């Protein structure tokens, strides 16, 4: 019966960790409770990208399939936190805001590669570079963010 007891123990451990994690996420009063907020300037990390990264062009800019491929990658790896429509969810902020939409492709690529690991955004360097660029193409495309539905910039 030892394996069964072990399995029960691990389930209990995961439950406890998850509940502690749930309690640590704050919700700003007045916001939809589904909306993500960590306090401070949520998008500040974008401004930390080094110049060399900011100025990198997207090699997938003229790739005809990049947006469609990026859409699938977004569904697989990003939508869980940022929402199916990139409007944000409980675990990740909206990607429709001008902070993100006005960022250069190189900045978004840098953020995807490095993540914001202290704030639960994983580093996505395990995706090959072309796939990260495809994600960037999708994020900045009308398919991800129709012009009419772009959200305004967030204030710190």
């Amino acid at each position, binding site marked *: *019966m*030892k*394996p*069964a007891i*072990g*399995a029960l*123990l*691990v389930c209990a*451990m*995961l*439950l406890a*960790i*998850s*509940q502690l*994690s*749930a309690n640590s996420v704050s919700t700003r009063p007045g916001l939809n*409770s*589904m909306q993500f907020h960590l306090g401070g300037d949520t998008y500040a990390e974008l401004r930390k990208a080094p110049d060399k990264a900011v100025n990198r062009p997207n090699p997938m800019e003229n790739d005809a*399939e990049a947006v*469609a*491929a*990026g859409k*699938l*990658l977004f569904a*697989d*790896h990003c939508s*869980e936190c940022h929402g199916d429509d990139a409007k944000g969810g*409980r*675990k990740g902020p909206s990607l429709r805001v001008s902070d993100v939409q006005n960022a250069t492709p190189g900045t978004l690529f840098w953020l995807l*590669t*490095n*993540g*914001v*690991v*202290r*704030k*639960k*955004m*994983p*580093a996505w*360097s*395990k*995706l*090959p*570079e*072309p*796939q990260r660029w*495809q994600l960037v193409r999708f994020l900045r495309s009308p398919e991800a963010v129709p012009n009419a539905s772009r959200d305004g910039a967030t204030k710190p």
Partner: protein
Amino acid sequence: MIYVRLTLVLALVLPSLAFSGSVAAQENPYFVAYDHNLEEPGNLEVEYFSTFGTQRAGKDFHSYWTEFEYGVNAWWTTEFYLDAQTTFHDSTVYSGFKWENRFRVLKHEHWINPVLYAEYADSNGTDKTLKEVVGHDAELDYLTSNAEARREHKREMELKLILSSNSKGWNFSENIIAEKNLSNEPWEFGYALAASRPLALKGSATRCTFCRQNFIVGAEMYGGLGDRHSFGLRETSHYLAPVAGWNLPSGWTLRVSPGFGLNDNSHKFLLRWGLSREIKGLDQLLRRLFGAKS
């Protein structure tokens, strides 16, 4: 001993069925080496692995283990293992459990990315998973019958320094291992090296099962480096193993690896295979179970 197998299979299958949200994973194909890519926060990966091993002058064996890998944070992954094995013409036995934690040290991605690994293992002498090879581990150690080996009780601590790089689609990983039996035995050392790459780097514009980017191939090499009193390659065993992984759009990952012993102390042949599934949003599901407002 059928309940051991049954429990392991149920432990793999039930969570996968219970949680509907799965996600196409991008997992490396390694069995022994670790890279710096941690589990995404809130996701649970349930994994089943098998190792078939040949044994000269003894009975071949099939060992298997189930892993529950949970992303606590973007910089911390915790994992729980249950191990068992069948030695042919002998018996099936439960071997023990392990609890491991991996911590990402640096905030940003670098050319070499260090991850610290700490593990506690509570097992008997029947453990034949060969998940890590350390010290003077040799094929001869596995000749003992299960009945005799299970009388031994080991509590071990293992530390690893994982150094890993992602470059041009390749992953290169180097693991430096230090293991200590918490009884009065010396530190033992080992290593694991690995490299892998997807067959294609670009993502496909359509969902596909057999697209080249879903297949990752590579190789692992691992072995012992002696102990504190006799550090080095003398009387150690070493293995070289091609690895292949197939990430299915449904969230399942299949892995296979034939391994070959590189010297007389090693098992001549190891065949490993594994099946895993990543379940996204376990934290959200548990939150709802606990009655958190959505």
